[in-house]
């Protein structure tokens, strides 16, 4: 199967479909800001921070076959690093003068802490914070990945252990109320270097920064997917032993891609904190981590753009649905999980690829370039095959 995977290689090498990326860019940078008021746009910005995680999951899970149920950990660590910086800024001695010890965050005061803990100290500095936002989660991911992948723990066991790590971190954050803000998280964040993050202008600005960062991550992910590493990942997903026997150090590729996924999640977490104004353990635990996986699955686990659209759609549905029918939402969510897994293993991207793209292709067939021809031929070959959902045959979604 290693060399027959009808996956990305032949299509990708000819065309990325840049117009799809331009379409998304137009949607995020022009259409949405013009169409939505700032409240809704801020909401979209919040959803987009989850899309960072989903893109990382496309690389780890879709391409590499490493399902992590602990992406919330990296999202949360990134978010907490940013939140600690903002919180320290918000608790300068003047504004916390009514506390028994002014100058420390309010929740520490409530928990009878009189001194800033040592690991909070460096977060006075913006430079350190910006590095820590990426470095802390990536280091954490690196440790986990080295421990697991060099010992060839994979698949199901990896999923369960990452889930346990998410559970551990949540319990730790909730338990250590004095150091972390406990179950409420770090709240009441106001300024970033003296710049009010809650004003309308700064929310617009943050939205655009967020969208730009998302695009940067998308491009990095696209590059990884299309370079040799991406092909090796797919090969490892299909037949890990053969790649190993071909002389590749499988573990190091997995470690790298897992760290990349963690870095994306961390950027998302930091942007989440900036846009929403708080961070809490409810974005770290098992439930949000699994929800992030489903965002990716709904969009299509093999498609980077699908992950972004999937995240947006599921969250939009969640918000509008749970506003009007709160008790039905869990039913719908559950059905979505089951439906995506059973009926559309390739998610929205798979549906698009199977039903819409051939039609578009047929309409624009006037002057077929050789590239398009080969793609069309392959599409025809694909559709003539029985659409069994086995692992090997689910590789035909492009970015």
């Amino acid at each position: 199967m290693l060399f027959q995977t009808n996956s990305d290689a032949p299509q990708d090498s000819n065309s990325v479909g840049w117009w799809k990326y331009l379409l998304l860019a137009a949607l995020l940078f022009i259409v949405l800001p013009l169409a939505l008021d700032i409240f809704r746009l801020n909401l979209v910005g919040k959803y987009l921070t989850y899309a960072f995680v989903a893109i990382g999951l496309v690389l780890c899970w879709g391409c590499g076959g490493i399902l992590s149920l602990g992406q919330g950990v990296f999202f949360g660590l990134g978010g907490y690093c940013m939140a600690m910086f903002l919180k320290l800024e918000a608790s300068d001695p003047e504004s916390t003068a009514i506390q028994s010890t002014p100058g420390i965050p309010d929740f520490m005061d409530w928990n009878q802490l009189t001194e800033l803990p040592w690991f909070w100290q460096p977060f006075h500095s913006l430079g350190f914070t910006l590095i820590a936002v990426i470095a802390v989660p990536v280091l954490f991911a690196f440790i986990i990945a080295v421990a697991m992948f060099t010992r060839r723990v994979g698949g199901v066991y990896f999923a369960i252990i990452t889930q346990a790590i998410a559970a551990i971190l949540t319990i730790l954050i909730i338990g250590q109320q004095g150091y972390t803000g406990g179950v409420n998280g770090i709240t009441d964040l106001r300024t970033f270097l003296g710049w009010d993050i809650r004003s309308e202008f700064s929310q617009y600005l943050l939205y655009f920064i967020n969208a730009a960062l998302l695009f940067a991550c998308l491009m990095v992910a696209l590059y990884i997917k299309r370079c040799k590493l991406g092909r090796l990942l797919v090969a490892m997903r299909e037949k890990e032993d053969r790649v190993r026997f071909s002389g590749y150090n499988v573990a190091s590729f997995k470690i790298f891609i897992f760290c990349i996924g963690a870095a994306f999640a961390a950027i998302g977490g930091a942007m989440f904190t900036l846009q929403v104004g708080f961070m809490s353990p409810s974005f770290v635990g098992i439930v949000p981590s699994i929800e992030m996986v489903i965002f990716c699955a709904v969009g299509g686990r093999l498609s980077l753009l699908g992950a972004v659209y999937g995240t947006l759609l599921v969250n939009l549905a969640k918000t509008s649905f749970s506003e009007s029918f709160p008790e039905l939402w869990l039913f719908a969510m559950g059905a979505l999980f089951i439906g995506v897994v059973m009926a559309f293993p390739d998610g929205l991207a798979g549906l698009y690829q199977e039903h819409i793209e051939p039609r578009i292709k047929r309409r624009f067939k006037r002057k077929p370039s050789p590239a398009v021809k080969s793609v069309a031929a392959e599409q025809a070959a694909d559709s003539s095959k029985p659409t069994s959902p086995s692992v090997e045959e689910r590789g035909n979604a492009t970015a």
Partner: protein
Amino acid sequence: MFADYTSAELTAIFAMQGFAGLILFSVFVLMALGLAIIFGQMGVINMAHGEFMILGAYITYLTSQFFSSHLPSLFDGYFFVAMLLAFVVTAALGALVEWLMIRHLYKRPLDTLLATWGLSLILQQLYRTVFGAREVGVSLPDWLMGSYAITDIIEVPINGIFVMGLTIIITFGVYLTMQKSRLGKQTRAVVQNRAMAGAVGINTERVDRYTFALGCGIAGVAGSAFTMVGSTGPTAGQLYIVDTFLVVVFGGASSLLGTVASAFTISQAQSTMEFFLSGSMAKVLTLLTVVGILMLRPQGLFSLKVRR
């Protein structure tokens, strides 16, 4: 940290904590047995396992309600009826789920995880709609209440002893089923080599269904036993699922003995540490240790030596 206590008190503390640990152990074993069959033998990641347990608990609750309003004279024995009902209903639901969902996903273990997570969300909301968001508890018959004093300071609750006894019986029952019964032998044959098992005339699909149903049924009985020591809410199942998976994985997924041993280790560690640290820190330390050991020994404590 021990200086504040006399030696008699320390003995009592360790005895009481040890006993609390034994109850936790029973709970873990009951939860993990069903999963050891479903995950360990069949390789299906059933994230809805907790919800199957809660179903057993709710059935016990309904049975106790029924007995106290309609058959008060038989109330002392309602629990045995409840347990049987819990087994039958959850096993039937398990068989249905296997037929509708799981059998299409045997080749994709990671996808069973997502699909059963969806199932667990649906079941949770179903419980919330039917029984309300409030936790429910059953009223115990008189002979299960109170506690038994071993010495002046050491007391053990009777319902705890009952749950432990039940655990021992169920564990042996599962052991015998898997080792001696026709279904157990067929299950192990199918797991080891599906094609060969089919070739010698085993109906592999039926074996799969019965095995999954058996695992779910045991979860139901576990939930039923839970009502003896605690109350039940719609989301209680989700709280246990990580612990349960860790117990099964830590013990070595395909070994029942390993499951029991790892449940014992984890529960004793946790309940002993709980006395000296806060509950959450004890839990964090226990889980961290388990994860750490799993990183060193990925196949778990007791793993079968097989060629791969």
